[in-house]
């Protein structure tokens, strides 16, 4: 009987070596571990054996069965692994083929620059105040210390409407008056973004409409030093931490003293290049201390309050940052331009 068990085991294991696929594995299982398999017949005959023989043969038969069960499991696992390896090999891709195109949306470059300006000034406590694009002569000029026929009006070529005294704002500065009248007597720190208009022949450098971001700070102790500090902080965040600024005397009717802030050309590091016309400096914004007349028109007593104001062009900043050579791209809405941002 023991010899028979040895033979059963050997025959089964030998047969297993030739098994290559799931079907023959199943056949093998039926043949060697199935109900009518020789091993099972040994179990069936156990009852006929003597008391002495039964435990011995029984133990051995169980050993053989365990061995065959394990062999079956091993073989099954090996075949699964081999099949998987075959599949993985067959599924190998050309990873250099292009990806599936995604119709990605984009924000207009002006929006992107505006948001960056908002963020930087928000961190300094400036909040956003918007006002209308079609304005009265009173708010666009007179309240800002620019009386009718004043030579300073030459600074703004204006689109007038056929309604008397109604014009397209030439700058966001009328917002200064709106915000002061609304917030008086609280201190003020706001930026005033928005579209402005100039009666100008359109060229690579000049547009009839453009965004402007005005800034206004009004308080009891605001100084020219604060103006310089705030705007230099802005320039360092917008153009690079190492960037230097300088303030040149300038003239705006609504500020005094007035200045132009230049930023050291961040493209050439101040050495002079095509973008800065060889000067090493880029004109970025106009600024100054709020003129007493303007403070007064806003409701603030210039003896008790002081303030500073500034104005910059997001499109100009975008042009410098992305080397955009023609301002006409901005409102032409050509997707070949817009898709680059």
């Amino acid at each position, binding site marked *: 009987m023991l010899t028979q068990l040895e033979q059963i085991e050997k025959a089964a294991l030998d047969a297993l070596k030739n098994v290559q696929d799931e079907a023959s594995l199943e056949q093998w299982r039926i043949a060697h571990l199935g109900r009518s398999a020789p091993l099972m017949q040994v179990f069936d005959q156990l009852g006929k054996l003597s008391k002495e023989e039964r435990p011995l043969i029984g133990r051995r038969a169980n050993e053989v069965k365990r061995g065959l069960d394990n062999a079956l499991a091993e073989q099954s696992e090996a075949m699964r692994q081999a099949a998987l390896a075959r599949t993985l090999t067959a599924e190998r891709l050309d990873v250099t083929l292009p990806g599936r195109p995604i119709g990605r949306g984009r924000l207009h470059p002006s929006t992107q620059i505006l948001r960056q300006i908002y963020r930087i000034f928000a961190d300094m406590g400036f*909040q956003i105040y*918007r006002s209308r694009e079609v304005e009265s002569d009173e708010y666009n000029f007179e309240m800002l210390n620019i009386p009718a026929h004043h030579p300073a009006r030459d600074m703004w070529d204006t689109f007038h409407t056929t309604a008397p005294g109604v014009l397209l704002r030439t700058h966001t500065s009328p917002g200064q008056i709106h915000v002061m009248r609304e917030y008086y007597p609280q201190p003020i720190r706001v930026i005033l973004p928005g579209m402005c208009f100039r009666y100008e022949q359109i060229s690579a450098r000049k547009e009839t409409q453009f965004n402007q971001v005005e800034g206004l700070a009004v308080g009891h102790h605001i100084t020219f030093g604060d103006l310089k500090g705030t705007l230099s902080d802005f320039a360092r965040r917008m153009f690079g931490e190492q960037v230097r600024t300088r303030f040149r005397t300038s003239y705006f009717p609504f500020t005094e003293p007035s200045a132009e802030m230049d930023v050291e050309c961040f493209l050439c590091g101040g050495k002079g290049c095509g973008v800065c016309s060889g000067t090493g400096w880029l004109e970025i914004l106009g600024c100054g201390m709020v003129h007493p007349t303007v403070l007064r028109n806003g409701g603030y007593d210039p003896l008790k309050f002081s303030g500073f104001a500034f104005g910059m062009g997001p499109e100009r900043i975008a042009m410098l940052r992305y080397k955009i050579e023609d301002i006409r791209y901005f409102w032409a809405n050509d997707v070949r331009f817009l898709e680059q941002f």
Partner: protein
Amino acid sequence: MKVPISWLRDFVDITLPLDELAHRLTMAGLEVEEMTLVGLSIPSGPLGADGRGSLDTKISGLSWEADKIVVAAVSEVMPHPNADRLVLCKLYDGEREHIVLTGAPNLQHLKGTGPLPQPLKVPYARLGARIYDGHQPGQVLTTLKPAKIRGIESYSMICSEKELGISEEHDGIIILDDEAPVGLPLADYIGDAVFDIAILPSTARTASILGVAREVAAITGQPLRLMPGFFSYSAEGPSIEGKASIQITTPELNPRFVLGLIQDLKIGPSPYWMQRRLKLAGMRPINNLVDITNYVMLEIGQPLHAFDYDVLVQRAGGKAPTIITRTAEAGERLTTLDGVERTLNDFSVLVCDTAGALSIAGVMGGAESEVSDQTRNILLEGAAWNYINTRRTMGAQKLQSEAAYRFSRGVHPAMAERGVRRGLELMRLLGGGAICQGLVDHYPLPASDPKITLTPAEVERLLGVPVPVEQIVKILESLEFACQVTQTPEGASILVQTPDHRLDIGNDLIGKADLIEEIARIYGYDRIPETRMADALPPQRNNPSLEREERVRDLLVEMGLTEIVSYRLTHPDREARRVAPGTPPEDKPYLYLANPMASDRNVLRHSLLSSVLEAVERNIRLRPRLALFEIGPVFMSSEEGTLPDEMQRLAIVMTGERDLAGWQKADTEPMDFYDLKGVLEGLLSGMHLSALRIEAVEHPSFHPGKCARLWIGGQPLGVFGELHPLVSERYDFPAGAVLAAELDLTSLLALAPERYEMSSVPAFPPVLEDLAVVVDEIVPADRVAELIRQAGGRTVTEVRLFDVYRSEQLGTEKKSLAYSLAYQAPDRTLTDKDVAQVRQKIIRRLEQETGAKLRS
């Protein structure tokens, strides 16, 4: 304003290198846009203390090499043996004698006259000198090389102005003054540089050499050199009394009028030094009389006008002329010096005599009383005009002149008398003649030069840096303000008297600000330290409308749309294309521009739909798929006031293939109504807007069967759909559906809730089930879904339409709608019995309300 350095040196010593001076002027508000070298050199190499960042000024022009371009003397002009037009000059350059060949027409008359009695001083360029080519247009550099011209050796040259970069003139060589020292480098004799300075509206006082010299003096700490007696003259003629009189009718427009008279003047060319200065300053020399009026204007900033006195006497019928200043009568005409007959406005001021108008005050003279070569006696006008009115006249007449440039920015009345004095004396010196004693001076509205009290504390309050009283006084005095310091218990106080050459200083508080600006710019903006605001932070506020608008932008970009920004200006015809032809015009009138830049952009837009459709037109052939949006205002003329209503709108446009095709299979079917609706649903859910209603409507822009209005609550928010084929035809679109929406963004944002609640993620699994019902074709799908939700109550957590089916079996005018439903309870797993109950309720409700039949 072009400022020759040599002229500037009449009034102030230049102690800084020219490039640094240009930088300092620029920083102080006199932007030197360009420096043109006319002989002088500037040190090369890096500029500024640290070698960077001070290159401000564009530098151009020619430096004359000291060893190659010198003063020389021509002692004889001889004929050229082989050419009639050329001459040979015997010339001494301080080292040796040369024979120099030239074709200069201004030497032809000396040809063959033998040794000259007085040698001619000329600029001489030696072999190897770099000069401009006289025969080429513009300024082309050339180096002198030996050549043989008509058989004669030539290696050097006597120069014209063009060759040296002084002017464009190449008609003859320069003849220098007799005193010119032979052998001296020409650069040391007449070498120059010209600053081109941009004059700000506030610095009209610097539109003169003297004005710039004042600034240079203040900036560099040098004294201004204005000789005592600079404005005096030597009058040897008879008294002016009885020879002319003045009547001013409107002193507000003409505060002062001064006349001087000079007799027996000889008109002729002005001396070379004056011509050269005028040319460098950008003016063309005419004759000594005209040149002197221009010279004085450039030098001190006071425009002058010269009348032919004899013409005026003739016009007055042989009597002494009376000059009258008055505003023009409506429709009055005058022919100005430029030959144009002008119809004048009633606000323009005229200078007249008893016979009529002579000139437009401060702007341009009339042709009739113009001086000529025969003029002997000159009545010289120096006046002050109201600058606002002058500017208004310039604008109305579209007339520019150097005089008007200055008068329209403000010239102090004190300068009128100084100008006449300076002009008369120069005329006497350069044209002979006798100046009549005295001036006729009417000054009905004397200038009140502001007196302002200023304290160092006020300066510090605005600038943020303490400036000692001594320094404030020094700065102000350097600009010719008179200062009187008083010590008070509160500190020093300065009484500042404005000098009588500037009109830009106000009174009181404004005057203080004006003075502080003067102090700051001379002190140096760069010396004021940067600080961070120490003031109280204002109340912090959100800006919900902007924040929500930005959220809308982000949501649309997330869904694959690209933002565009269009022109606010358009034309009614451009916008009319957005509706089918024959549709009646809108009820609201456009706001028209009075001065459009382009005829096709003459109104403010009414429609954002129109803007995005134009963008599609531009791009549709560039890409297989377009999905664009714009956020911005439209402008509706308001009935209440003159300012229009500005309404923030959102427009979306989509057209082309649904997916972008790559190398794999993609859904390249054209997008339809439901693609657009999907974007709108995504947007509205992103804004957490609920209580939406979509209603089929007809709209002149859209396909009558593919158009809907969006409602939230009781508020219509706009219309969307597929463009009407007749509208598509009006644009340059290829065939295919264009989907578009125009929404009232202001209302949409106002309706968006500030807060919303999340619902808890269910802990128990849902029972999923499909439900298909057959309804009449006219029953809207969202009505069915709504009824399912209502009947299902809180147990039905999801209702999703997944199939719409029509067939003959169902019957005509019938459709099957299949929904996938989720039943769920927050606290337990629902049993089949629970679900069956709810399902029954739903079916019953659908039957009752819509006649729906359950589809088996």
